[in-house]
C-alpha cells in the first residue's frame, strides 16, 4: 500500500492523525509527515483517514 498526500492541498486539519496515528503526524515544525508505505494491516485506518480529510488530500495506491 502506497500513501501520498497532496501537500499543495493539505490544510493541516489533522483529521487523518486521529484516524491513523500510526501513519500520520505533525512534525516539530507543524507540517504533516506520513509513512509512505504502511503495513497492509493498517489499510482500514488509512482508508478511514483518507475519507475524513476535509480537503481529500490523501491518495492510496496498491
Amino acid at each position: 500500500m502506497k500513501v501520498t498526500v497532496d501537500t499543495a492541498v493539505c490544510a493541516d486539519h489533522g483529521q487523518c492523525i486521529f484516524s491513523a496515528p500510526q501513519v500520520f503526524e505533525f512534525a516539530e515544525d507543524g507540517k504533516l509527515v506520513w509513512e509512505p508505505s504502511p503495513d497492509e494491516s493498517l489499510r482500514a485506518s488509512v482508508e478511514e483517514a483518507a475519507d475524513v480529510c476535509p480537503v481529500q488530500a490523501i491518495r492510496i495506491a496498491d
Partner: protein
Amino acid sequence: MASQIVVVGGSLGGLRAAEQLRVNGWSGALTVVGAEAHLPYNRPPLSKNVLVSPDISALTAAELVDYPGVALRRRAQVEDVSFVLDTQVASAALSDRSLLTVDGRELAYDGLVIATGLRPRRLPIAGFDRHRHALRTLDDAIALRGQLTPGTAVVVVGGGFIGCEVAASACRLGCQVTVVEPFAAPMLRPLGAELARTVQTFHEDKGVSFRLGRSVSTLAGRASDPATLGAVVLDDGTELEADVLVEAVGSNPNVEWLAGNGLDLSDGVLCDNMMRVEARENVVAVGDVARFPNPRFGSTPRRVEHWCIPADTAHRAATTLIRGLSTAENGDRDPAPFAPLPSFWSDQFDVRIQGFGRTEHADRIEVLEGGFAPGWVSEGVVVGYFRQSTMTGVVIAGGTPAQRLRHKTLLEGVG
C-alpha cells in the same frame, strides 16, 4: 433475498453510504440517485477557495468537480455502483418499496438510504432574482463568483458560518461587504458572545461591516434602473447599497419526497440510534437530513450540519441496513451505542475556527488557553463550553494545528 439498495442523494452522505455498504459486504445491486448533474463533490471549498482562488476562476463546473480539494475521493469499491444523476426522486411508497423520479422512472428497492441533505432557506421577498444568491451547490458558487468583482456592493444576510465565510471571501475579492444579522453578534450561538465579538472585530479590521440586531424588510431597485437591485432596506428603515445579495439564513431538509408515508419529517428524518428510520428494517438515513439521538448529549434526536457527520452516520447506517436485510443475522448482537463526536471548522480570511462537541446552549463559557488580546490569531485562543460543570464542547480559533489536535483529546470522554 434482497437484491437492490437505492441511495437517494448523491453528495458526501450518499457516497459514503454506498462505500460503507460495499465495505460491509453488500454485493447486491447499488444505485445512487442524485438531483445534481455532478458526481459527489466537496462543499466546504464553495464558500472559500472556489470563490477566491484566481487560478480556478475560469474553470467550469465539470472541471471543478475533479479539482483538488473540491473532488471527493471515491473508494475503489464503488466502481460498479450506478450513479443516476440529474434526476430527483419525486416520491416514495415505503410500503411498496418503490420510488418514483420526476422524469417518471420507477425504482424498486429492498433497502433505502435517505441522503438528501438540505437546501438553503430563502428570504420571503419577491423580485431581483438575478442579483440574489444562496450557496449550497457548485453551480451556486460559480454563479456567485461571477458577480464578486472589485467595488461591488455585497450584502450578506445571515452571520452564521457560511455567511461569514462568504463575507470574508467577497472582501478578499475587493467587494464592499455588509453582513446583516438579527442577533447581537455573528456566529453567536455556536461561539458564544466573547469569541463571536472577537471574530467580528477581526472581520471589521479587514473591512467587513456589520448591521447587528437587524433584519431585511424589503429590496429596492436603482433610481436609474428600477429593475436592477440597488438597495437592501432594513427593519429600521436603513437602506444599504447592494449590487448583490447573498442569503445565508439557514437551510431546510429535503424531505418532501418522503411525504405520505406517516414519517415524522418535522425537522429532517427521525431516526433511532442505529440510523434506522422509525423502526423500519430496510430504511436508514445519513448526513445533514438525519435527526438522531447522540447519547453523548442526552436522548433528544438532533440534526447536525457538519461535514464529519455524513461519514460517521454512513458507517452506522450501512451496518444497520445490511443486518436488517439479511434475516439470518437478525438480532444476533446488540451493537454499542453510536456516539459520534461532532466536529466542525470554518476558515475566514486567514483564521481557522475549529470546534469539537456541542457549543450551543452552554451555561458557562471559559477561556482555557490564550486570550482575546491582539495576537490571538497567531497565538490561538481555546474556549471551553460547559453545561452544569460538564464540558460539552471546545473551540480553538487561530493558533497552530498541533494545538487544535491536543484539545480534541480533551473531549474524548465528554458526555
